[in-house]
């Protein structure tokens, strides 16, 4: 199935993503930030679908939005933030931070303008229907070791999170 109205959806979704990103870093209330982040994540999932990566899009929704963001919201509710919402939201080095970010942006611009012609414009034909199979073959074939390491990482993270969050185990 060929995507319809690609241009419109691209600008729509990327607009949503960037808007969400701006809201994330400007909102006072962390819950609003989290909602904005969810917006960004969903928009990015839509962009994945447009890039013929449905499996990554599914994983993005199920893990990021359904898992990680719920964790975030859960923690925001646990730590009562009413007091801190009234305080100054930006740290003292915010000017330095902005300058650094601007510098980074400049770097990106330079790289894009210079390297735009390095990679082929012609897209490789990735069959959408077998996307999941291809990802699976790659994941359990070439990247088997990395996959196992990732599982170990998750185990470590579980233990770490439990140790951190629980005072008395």
């Amino acid at each position: 199935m060929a995507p319809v109205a690609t241009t419109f959806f691209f600008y729509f979704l990327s607009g949503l993503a960037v808007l969400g990103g701006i809201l994330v870093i400007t909102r006072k209330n962390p819950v609003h930030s989290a909602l904005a982040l969810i917006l960004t994540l969903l928009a990015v999932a839509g962009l994945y679908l447009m890039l013929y990566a449905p499996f990554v899009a599914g994983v993005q929704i199920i893990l990021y939005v359904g898992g990680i963001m719920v964790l975030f919201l859960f923690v925001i509710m646990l730590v009562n933030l009413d007091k801190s919402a009234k305080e100054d939201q930006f740290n003292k080095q915010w000017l330095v931070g902005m300058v650094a970010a601007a510098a980074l942006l400049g770097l990106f611009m330079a790289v894009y303008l210079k390297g735009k012609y390095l990679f082929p414009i012609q897209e490789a034909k990735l069959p959408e229907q077998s996307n999941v199979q291809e990802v699976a073959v790659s994941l359990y074939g070439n990247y088997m070791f990395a996959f196992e390491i990732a599982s170990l990482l998750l185990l470590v993270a579980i233990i770490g999170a439990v140790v951190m969050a629980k005072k008395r185990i």
Partner: protein
Amino acid sequence: MAPITTVHYLVVAAALFILGVIGVLTRRNVVIVLMSIELILNAVNLNLVAFSRLYGVQGQVFSIFVITDAAAEAAVGLGILIAFFRNKETVNVDEVDLMKW
């Protein structure tokens, strides 16, 4: 309008990345800093997936690893946040000035 090419996606990814960097560098609230890190990771993922259009499926595999990493990071980060909040009753990064308690 011009057809959407990989460069377009890269620009979106760069914008998200910069937003994330600004968030990390300027915000005081740990939760929002962690969320900004998620933004950065997403920007990276978008780059990876965009390039996987050109060079094959490896980019998508890597983005899955990045998502795994993000989950681990969020779990540990929020765990630290809870431990920190329990001791100092605050979630501001610039008040994290003790190495132990």
